[in-house]
């Protein structure tokens, strides 16, 4: 069972309290009804599924109940960092060479 740092509770908490909510930073268009089929396909169906660093959404379901974002390495299954929902994609990741 992993420990995940909740950016709202400001501490690491057991994985059992959390739930994954898919890839992060996929913006829903403010004019969604005017979107083309291609754009909607990209928005709704296409996910990056990378080997390595992934930006994803988690919810501290059985804690503060907040959604937040996390950077995780899909190879090592280690969390690199977490940050609050709405905050921009971090430009620098601690401990990750790029």
């Amino acid at each position: 069972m992993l420990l995940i740092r909740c950016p709202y509770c400001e501490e690491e908490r057991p994985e059992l309290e959390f739930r994954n909510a898919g890839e992060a930073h996929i913006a829903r268009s403010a004019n969604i009804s005017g979107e083309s089929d291609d754009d909607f396909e990209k928005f709704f169906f296409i996910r990056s599924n990378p080997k390595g660093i992934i930006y994803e959404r988690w919810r501290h379901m059985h804690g503060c109940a907040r959604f937040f974002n996390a950077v995780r390495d899909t190879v090592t299954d280690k969390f690199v960092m977490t940050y609050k929902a709405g905050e921009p994609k971090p430009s620098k990741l601690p401990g990750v060479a790029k």
Partner: protein
Amino acid sequence: MAKAAARTAATASPSAERRSALAGRTVSATGAKVEVLPPAERISLRAPEASVPALSKALGVTLPKQPKTSASKGGRTALWLGPDEWLVIDEAGKDPLADCAEVSALHSSVGISHRNIAISVTGPAAEAAINSGCPQDLSLEAFPVGAASRTILGKAEIVLLRTAEDAFRVECWRSFSDYVFTFLSEGARDAAG
């Protein structure tokens, strides 16, 4: 049942009998006692930071802003559950819902007195009893007196409040209370061993 029905039909006045889930249930093991607490008034309070002073004033207890903390005054306890969420429990028979209704500052206050059941776990083995199914570190360093958190017990969600070094209040939803009580009873029995 016939008695209650007859009374209400005759007068249509306050008469429906309150039947709490698990009322009066208690289990004692060496070192830990698990018992259902009496009904209390509760609200789920949601508000942005700007409204906190006004709500604190109306409730008579300062809403805590630090994660995993609570504040208590005059039989009323406010538990920080999230950055804009508090569980307010009143054990003094006063109605926090009515107090919040007076506040014009932006907020949401919803009565949940009957949604939750409170179970107390007390005794030197209380911490171990809860750790039978709760994955959080409940040592005094990590979870001091007054600490409060929504978390997990086995397969149920609970809200945990440490009321003393060897006493916890466990809140859960009504229909989970049998499960939670039974789990804590097994935990208490094992923690005693």
